[in-house]
């Protein structure tokens, strides 16, 4: 502790006004804030504050993503970790740049975006493409809206959609073959990219991957979302600690299940199959629950989840796309402000009636 404090005190003058690296002060501030808890005092009542801060809030999401990370390394090799590093480096550069220009702090929210993004990409995505996608996502999806807390869309999904539209072939037709056995692909860097089909694409042409494979995750697909077991484990953690809104998750998965059940002639088996396939679980637990791009009210979150669930099922089953979770969540993001307007107004009316 003392050593860290001394080290920080030693380098601090370099970042001060007049110091050699004064422009990069946000980097110092972010590093210091992450390493050592702040001593900032409360200025007014309430004199004490809850120990939860944004750093911990975000780090809990990262902890919840660890099972998915582990599963993706197991199935698709260490290359996934390299993708995460590329994503952090490129996206982090944009974040720091904007912090410098705004003379503001680097926000911790980026640590989540930077991790979520590579996990929704095919495991064989070229590194430069990871970089381009995350830069676009952070820049257009977040910074242009005014930075953390003001973005309309989930930045990771903005980057993902950009890549899907700009490089459709790389994003939809080249998937890795998942590893198996005790060590899976943990011992190798990358897996052979083949022009194969994901379970959802195969299902469109009539072939159904066994349920167990979907649950375990030994199927082709985006790096972090193939293993339903890992997503459920991390997702349960998020709900348990109260970071993700259980209403959003329940509404999304519930509406999706009901819609799929209806579209598949009332087959519970197919409903379960669709819940475990593709990115619906990952999207519901980790993407739709992003508080900033969700509605603010509880009723709004129920409606938002229903819109996402229904849209995801419709796109998946009735359009030319094999997967629709990404678009469905962005659609939900579009609806969030109007849902807020509706439910905030309703709340205000109820308050008036209460007197």
């Amino acid at each position: 502790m003392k050593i860290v404090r001394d080290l920080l005190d030693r380098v601090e003058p370099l970042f001060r006004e007049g110091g050699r690296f004064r422009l990069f002060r946000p980097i110092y501030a972010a590093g210091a804030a992450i390493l050592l808890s702040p001593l900032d005092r409360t200025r007014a009542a309430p004199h004490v504050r809850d120990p939860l801060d944004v750093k911990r809030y975000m780090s809990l999401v990262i902890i919840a993503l660890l099972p998915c990370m582990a599963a993706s390394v197991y199935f698709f090799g260490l290359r996934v970790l390299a993708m995460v590093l590329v994503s952090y480096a490129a996206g982090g550069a944009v974040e720091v740049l904007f912090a410098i220009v705004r003379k503001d702090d680097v926000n911790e929210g980026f640590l989540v975006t930077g991790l979520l993004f590579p996990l929704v990409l095919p495991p064989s995505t070229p590194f430069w493409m990871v970089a381009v996608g995350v830069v676009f996502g952070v820049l257009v999806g977040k910074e242009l809206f005014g930075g953390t807390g003001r973005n309309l869309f989930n930045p990771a999904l903005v980057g993902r959609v950009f890549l899907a539209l700009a490089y459709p072939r790389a994003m939809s037709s080249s998937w890795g073959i998942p590893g198996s056995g005790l060590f899976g692909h943990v011992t190798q860097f990358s897996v052979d990219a083949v022009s194969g089909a994901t379970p959802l694409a195969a299902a469109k042409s009539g072939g159904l991957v066994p349920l167990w494979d979907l649950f375990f995750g030994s199927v082709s697909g985006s790096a972090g979302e193939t293993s339903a077991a890992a997503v459920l484990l991390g997702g349960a953690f998020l709900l348990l600690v109260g970071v993700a809104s259980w209403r959003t998750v329940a509404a999304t998965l519930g509406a999706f299940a009901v819609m799929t059940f209806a579209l598949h002639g009332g087959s519970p088996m197919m409903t379960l199959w669709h819940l475990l396939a593709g990115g619906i679980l990952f999207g519901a637990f980790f993407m739709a629950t992003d508080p900033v791009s969700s509605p603010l009210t509880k009723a709004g979150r129920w409606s938002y989840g229903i819109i996402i669930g229904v849209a995801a099922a419709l796109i998946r089953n009735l359009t030319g796309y094999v997967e629709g979770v990404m678009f469905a969540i962005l659609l939900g993001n579009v609806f969030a402000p109007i849902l807020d307007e509706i439910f905030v107004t309703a709340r205000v009316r109820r308050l008036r009636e209460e007197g």
Partner: protein
Amino acid sequence: MRGGYNVPVAGAPLPEIRELPAPDRLYLPLASRRLDFGDVRVEEGQRVARGEVLAVDPEHFSIPLLAPYGGIVRLSEVEGHIVLDELDTTAGDRAAAGSTGAVAERLLALGAWQYLSDARTGDAADPAGRPSATIVSTLRLEPFLAGGEAQLDGALERLARGLEHVRGMAPEAPLYVVVPNADAPLAAELRKAVSACSGAHVVSVPMRFPFDDPALLARYLKLPAGPDTTVWAIPVEGVLAVEAALTDGRPCTERIVSFAGPAVTEPTHFRLVPGHPVADILAERLCREPARVINGGLLTGVVLSPEQRGVDSECTGLTVVGEPTRQTLLAFARPGISRRSYNRSFVGTLRTDMSMRYRAGLSGEVRPCIACGQCADVCPAGILPQVIHRHLYADRLEEAQRTRVDLCVGCGLCSFVCPSKIDLRTELLDAKRVLREEEEALRAEAEAEAARAAEAKAAEAEETQAGEVTV
């Protein structure tokens, strides 16, 4: 009732009440939370008797500051205080002034009126006014103010008599007595005592902060609101003060004050009089660390000014909390075995009976709102602090008004739970104050306009009359 939260903070006072050694001198502050005793009624060197008026607050119906003991007045010794020297602590010499006259006048003269407030605004109640209802709360839930249990200290009989007096003050207004819906024996006794009082409605409320707030209770009970109706709120010690004044004609000078908080070695309650030297209370009773003394509770109190030498006449508690002094390496990534949060993000959550040694720090960095919604979850008023924050951030005061910032009761829970460490309480209360001032200015303007119009009309009428005469 909705929202609310009991902060699991260590340092709660024991219910027992201790006496302090009698002080040599009293330092009576001329200002307290609501009151400002600007009109001093005594002279330097004057000998006063117990219960004599030292000063009054001209802005608030001349609510008096009474001499808690007999003594010699020193006016210029300490800035902002009346010092009483050569104290005569023997009770008995009572003020003659309060024994006659109308009930409100007697209560004013005997120092009991200061406990009556307008439930919705928190302002002092108007002695000339008539309430549409009266709320008596036996709860005080903010950590660690002296609540009903300590204030009553077994005086249930006096409470019952006091309630009869309060009822008599506004016979046609319904009287609501708020009691805890706990299983504790005291709660049961309290319910029994209150039920015995004819015409009092018992209202059971969960022991969750801030369900004792008069404005919330008035809303919860659906009491009429409007510019011409007021609801009186009286805390339990106020009822006892009314009882003392009207039954015995005794002035109300003693107070039960909590002295507690994470940085106090033996949190307890003291029976003392206003003006008791703060230094005497603090001496030998604090942990050895930089600490902040708060006049009031942890969530809504104000930092005790170093200039304030004595306990003021509205004080219900002094709370002491340590300042943040130690930085922890990677604190945010630790399991947090000894930490609890409003959501469940620390391992300490599993230890439901654990209380935490909070410090007076933000415990995090100020960040933009991430819309987690915890403030709205915890808000007892049912408003959406995060929505109002967005409006205020964009300078849309009228939108903040539309989303009912006026309903904020200032409990501070939104600021407390905010992971982005946004000072929501200050923002909301500032906006509420500005809007209230605007409204008052508008009303004053409208009244002036109406008066001008009436004058003009009268003049016109006179003129026409005059004209008629000439014709």
